[in-house]
């Protein structure tokens, strides 16, 4: 980490000196361009202050906090079941995946294990929220580069997945389906067969995006070699998820850590790409969406019968202790550090969200790129504002 920042410092000073020379010779003046908080490319209210020389970025600084909702403080005055509905609003595109690590942390403290069927359904819905989340990215990347049609296809096909999530949980966006010790209710009749046909649609969508965007020459020229993040920089800034895997680091919490969820029961693959550029990030996410559809298919085949709820006391009091549980969420590693003092609610919760760390690489990666590439890189880093600011 030190080596990287040293080298970066030297590169920065060198770039500054070069800029200064150009400015003196041509008598040009830099310009400060303020991207956001209201800007179509920032997915909400991220603000990026860029210093430009012509169209080239000299420095860029992300400013966050415009959507801070204070969840870490709010959860301190709520009971565990109430917190569930708060935390699924952190990454609003893959809501169910936010509930799972928190519930798992609470279960770990209470030393409860949900029955197998509940764990399988949790994993299925976890992967489905990954699909619901990332399909939107796959289309949105097109919009950020000017190909408007892709996002409408994404919205169209994501709808099928959301319908299935709604059928199972009752909530399209915010399921609030996970419970300490199990699930709210069992799956409706016919859900398994219908979900399988939806997974076929997801795979078709991935093929469509592959021909529409990945195979497009303009898309490749706009993304290949743009915003390259080498593996050591990615690790140094604490990147996680597809952003890290696109830099060639083979790291996936679904495979690399023991979890009550059942990814180890099915046959799947972690996709990496050696390039670390915007194209690699898109490509890795595309493959992961396909892989998620395969995981869901296999899990649906092996879904065990049985109860969906363990024996849990009517009033949930979590014994004193500390627990850290993190999972591989759609955007990267998401974790909750829960400190309990034996009350109805937690004493303190620290939420580790992937987008917050992913966005921290922005000043490094935006240095020296052109204005259009800012958008490409931001889009390919893929963050959700609720996930940055919480």
């Amino acid at each position, binding site marked *: 980490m030190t080596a990287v920042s040293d080298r970066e410092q030297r590169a920065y000073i060198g770039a500054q000196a070069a800029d200064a020379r150009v400015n003196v010779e041509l008598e040009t003046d830099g*310009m400060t*361009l303020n991207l956001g908080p209201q*800007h*179509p*490319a920032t997915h909400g209210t991220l603000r990026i202050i860029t210093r430009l020389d012509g*169209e080239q970025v000299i420095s860029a600084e992300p400013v966050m906090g415009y959507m801070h909702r204070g969840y870490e403080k709010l959860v301190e005055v709520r009971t565990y079941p109430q917190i569930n509905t708060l935390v699924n609003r952190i990454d609003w595109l893959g809501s169910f995946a936010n509930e799972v690590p928190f519930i798992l942390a609470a279960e770990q403290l209470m030393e409860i294990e949900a029955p197998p069927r509940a764990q399988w359904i949790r994993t299925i819905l976890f992967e489905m929220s990954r699909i619901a989340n990332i399909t939107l990215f796959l289309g949105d990347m*097109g*919009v*950020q*580069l*000017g*190909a*408007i*049609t892709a996002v*409408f*296809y994404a919205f*169209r096909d994501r709808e099928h997945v959301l319908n299935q999530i709604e059928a199972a949980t009752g909530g399209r966006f915010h399921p609030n389906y996970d419970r300490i010790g199990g699930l709210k209710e069992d799956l409706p009749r016919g859900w398994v067969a219908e979900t399988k046909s939806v997974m076929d649609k997801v795979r078709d969508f991935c093929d469509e995006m592959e021909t*529409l*965007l990945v195979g*497009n020459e*303009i*898309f490749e*020229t*706009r993304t290949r070699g743009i915003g390259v993040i080498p593996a050591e920089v990615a690790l140094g800034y604490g990147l996680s998820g597809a952003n890290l895997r696109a830099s060639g680091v083979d790291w996936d919490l679904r495979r690399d850590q023991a979890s009550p969820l059942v990814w180890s029961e099915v046959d799947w693959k972690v996709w990496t790409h050696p390039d670390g550029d915007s194209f690699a990030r898109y490509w890795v996410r595309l493959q992961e969406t396909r892989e998620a559809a395969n995981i869901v298919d296999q899990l649906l085949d092996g879904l065990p019968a049985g109860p969906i709820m363990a024996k849990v006391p009517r009033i949930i009091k979590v014994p004193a202790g500390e627990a850290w549980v993190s999972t591989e969420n759609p955007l990267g590693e998401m974790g909750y550090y829960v400190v309990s003092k034996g009350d109805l609610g937690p004493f303190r919760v620290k939420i580790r969200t992937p987008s917050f760390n992913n966005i921290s690489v922005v000043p490094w990666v935006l240095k020296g790129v*052109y*204005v*259009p*590439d*800012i*958008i490409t890189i931001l889009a390919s880093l893929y963050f959700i504002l609720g996930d940055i600011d919480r």
Partner: protein
Amino acid sequence: MELTLAIELAYWQQLTVKVLAVLIIVPTATAIIVQTFLFKVMAHMQSRLGPMEAGPHGALQLMADGAKFVQKEVLAPARADRRVFVLAPVVVLLSTFLLFVVIPAGPSGVAEDLDIGIFFALAVSSISVLGVLMAGWASANKYALIGGLRAAGQLIAYELPLVLAVVGVVIQAGTLSLQGIVRAQAEGEIFGFGLLGLPFVFTQFIGFALFLIATQAELTQPPFDMPVAESELVAGYQVEYSGLQFLYFYLGEFGAAFAFSALAATMFLGGWWVPGLDLDGGLLSNLIGPAVLFAKTMAVAFLIFWIRFTYPRLREDQLQTFAWKYLIPLSLLNILATGVFKVVF
């Protein structure tokens, strides 16, 4: 429009009729283009319905939108250069109006059949960039400024292939007059088979492709819409405009889209002529000619807008590379080949 009427009109009367005709045709053509392609074709391509409520299948949506624009307050930023700011949309619109002057829609259905018709059309179409630059500069907005400068920067990258693509047609037809180009296609033969004429798209297919690509840039459409680039520059040079002034830009852009489609139809697809029409006049040709041209124009416009809705956007420097390394050498080769064939045959 200089119809072959029995009565002789004085010069000023002819002029009034022509001006009125262009004034009516430009907004109508723009309305048709926007309603058909931007509202409905785009929506159906994106598996949406598009506007459905106003009129049958949303046919009157544009009227509602137009009325909305007229009602809106015309705003200007406090630090804007007022005079230039107000003038800019007018300059863009002017360029579009001038384009329509030379496009022939029948043996006598042309406002002014200039001898240098196509040269005039390409020259006046470049004026719009001046308006864009003015808008970008006068808006006192950084996004607008970048947009305006991008428009100026990419000007030469596509104007050159655009002109060079046309040169092949001009060599083959032996005239710059658009009426002459239509005539040359009508009188041409495909290997001695003269019934269909010879639409130049068969011989100048490279020129046709180059012309369509350069037209995308001329109209600031994807993949060359860097001056407006919604996801980066919000709306580029248009960002500070509202109400009627914004509508002017809109009219200018899509009016030009129609005009360039009509130019492509005229130069490459035979223009207003179809087999059976009299080249030298007559009521039938003058009535059917516009309809034929309109049909061909819409076919070309469909191609243009199809690309618009599908492709991502290039970067400014990538456009320059593309233009100088591929488009311009290719168009020069095309001219060379056309010249050789012209001499040999």
